[in-house]
């Protein structure tokens, strides 16, 4: 104990986290490059990346990963912004709506995939609905390699449904930090609702939008459950390929290469967001 007393309290309190993160974060992170860039006998090599790029699934995995992101994120951002604006109105029952909207936050992407499978499967709710409406005599098959567009649509819907609340909550907590004065000033000048949103709320919300986009993009790149449930390997993405290479092929080196590619894509996306949504000095001054 006397030794412990000599160490400053903050250091004592921080050290468990530091030790833990070194063991279960830093070391694996260093290890992953070792795996991807080395051969079995620890010699530097690009062979794992070569094997990854030459694989027949690589091109479509790259394309699908990017396409899904481009389809999912904008829809999610708009829907989440709308939902956040609604809840932020503070009408009677607004908290009730907030809870309802937030429900998918607790649902895993695997469970979400299974939920939407019940809609898109051959004898599922979508076919059933169309039959009841009289549009359809025999059920359509949506989830097969012959209908890649339907598969993508199903995955996009699943992911939009599940993860929009995450964006909403980030935007909502940003909205609540906007001082009422700005809105009141806009009201005084007779701004319309749209003008308020466009010229007051959106610019002030930029930092929240930025962090929501960065966060969401990183998570969307990792999306894995819905892919496996709704498409399997017929619609490969980087995350699912990393999984297949580890579990089925039993090659952790190529799996690590895929994981690094995923990281690289996340970094590129983050960089784009930071550049495109740069908060200028004068705007920082306003806040």
């Amino acid at each position, binding site marked *: 104990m006397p030794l412990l007393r000599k160490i400053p309290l903050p250091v004592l309190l921080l050290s468990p986290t530091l030790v833990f993160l070194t063991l279960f974060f830093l070391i694996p992170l260093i290890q992953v490059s070792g795996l991807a860039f080395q051969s079995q006998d620890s010699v530097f090599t690009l062979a794992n990346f070569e094997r990854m790029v030459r694989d027949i699934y690589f091109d479509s995995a790259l394309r699908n990963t990017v396409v899904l992101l481009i389809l999912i994120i904008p829809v999610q951002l708009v829907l989440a912004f709308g*939902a956040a604006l609604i809840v932020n109105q503070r009408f009677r029952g607004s908290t009730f709506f907030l809870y309802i909207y937030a429900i998918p936050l607790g649902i895993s992407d695997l469970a979400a995939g299974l939920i939407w499978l019940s809609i898109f499967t051959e004898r599922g709710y979508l076919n059933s609905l169309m*039959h009841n409406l009289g549009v359809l005599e025999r059920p359509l098959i949506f989830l097969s390699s012959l209908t890649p567009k339907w598969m993508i649509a199903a995955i996009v819907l699943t992911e939009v449904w599940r993860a929009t609340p995450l964006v909403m909550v980030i935007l909502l907590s940003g909205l609540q930090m906007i001082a009422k004065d700005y809105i009141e000033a806009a009201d005084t000048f007779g701004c319309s609702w749209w003008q308020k949103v466009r010229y007051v709320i959106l610019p002030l919300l930029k930092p929240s939008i930025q962090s929501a986009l960065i966060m969401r993009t990183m998570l969307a790149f990792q999306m894995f459950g819905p892919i496996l449930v709704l498409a399997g390997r017929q619609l490969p993405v980087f995350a699912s390929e990393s999984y297949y290479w580890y579990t089925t092929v039993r090659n*952790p080196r190529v799996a690590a290469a895929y994981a690094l590619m995923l990281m690289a894509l996340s970094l590129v996306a983050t960089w784009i967001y930071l550049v495109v949504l740069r908060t200028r000095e004068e705007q920082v001054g306003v806040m």
Partner: protein
Amino acid sequence: MRLRKVAFYAVAILFAVWTILPIVLIALAALTPRQELYSWPRQFVPSTISLESFQFFVNSHGVLASTGRSVIVAVATVLIALLVGAPAGYALARFRFRGKEAFRIGILLTRMFPTSLLAIPLAVLYLKTNIYDTILGLAFMHAALAMPFVVLITSSLFLKVPYDLEEAAMTLGCSRIGAFARVSLPIALPSLVAAGIYTFVLSWNEVFASAVLTVHNRTLPAHIISTLNVSPLNFKFAGGFFMIIPALIFIFIVRRYLLSMWGVAINK
């Protein structure tokens, strides 16, 4: 004005329906008798509510065992994450020290890495150290995923507990630890529990690392994902609904903390 109000409520309700409807549908699918699930034309509402699929799911090989493991892993994750992370959160809230900003940014950065980037090398490391395919190994991984959240959330919790109260307790003769245990901890406890529940759900829902780090000792999501190709529809629907029930209950319990938790964990 009246029209605008109606339109506003209509949009709000529409979005609520969009959120709720898929959950209702999977619940109905899970409670539909197997035969009706495969019949055509298929009705939206089953003719009878049947627990057939549920029984089939629960009695399937490996489901009960993996559910039990999921719970143990999640509880272990909560304990590890809180025991390791909460002191750091407290330090961030209470002390000024050199490198505090660096520490905070470092913690934030750990959220930027994909799960696969950690899970794959950890699996290789675990194989060497014999904790591969163990409950504890997976709990460590999940705790690493939850750590940034736990540190940041506990720091904001303790910021809200006025330091004056702790000081008052200390002038009245409490030790530092006593002041913390008798004053700060009871005030922060409900939010700490909420953070713990959130961590539980994070572990309960986690798929990728669970599927990579376990082989025989699967958790429920890992079990479901590794048997996807061989399991029938009624197994999948019952499994999907089964997995979301605890998550729904937990989200309902922590609903008051949702905004503060997510807002803090992400925006700061």
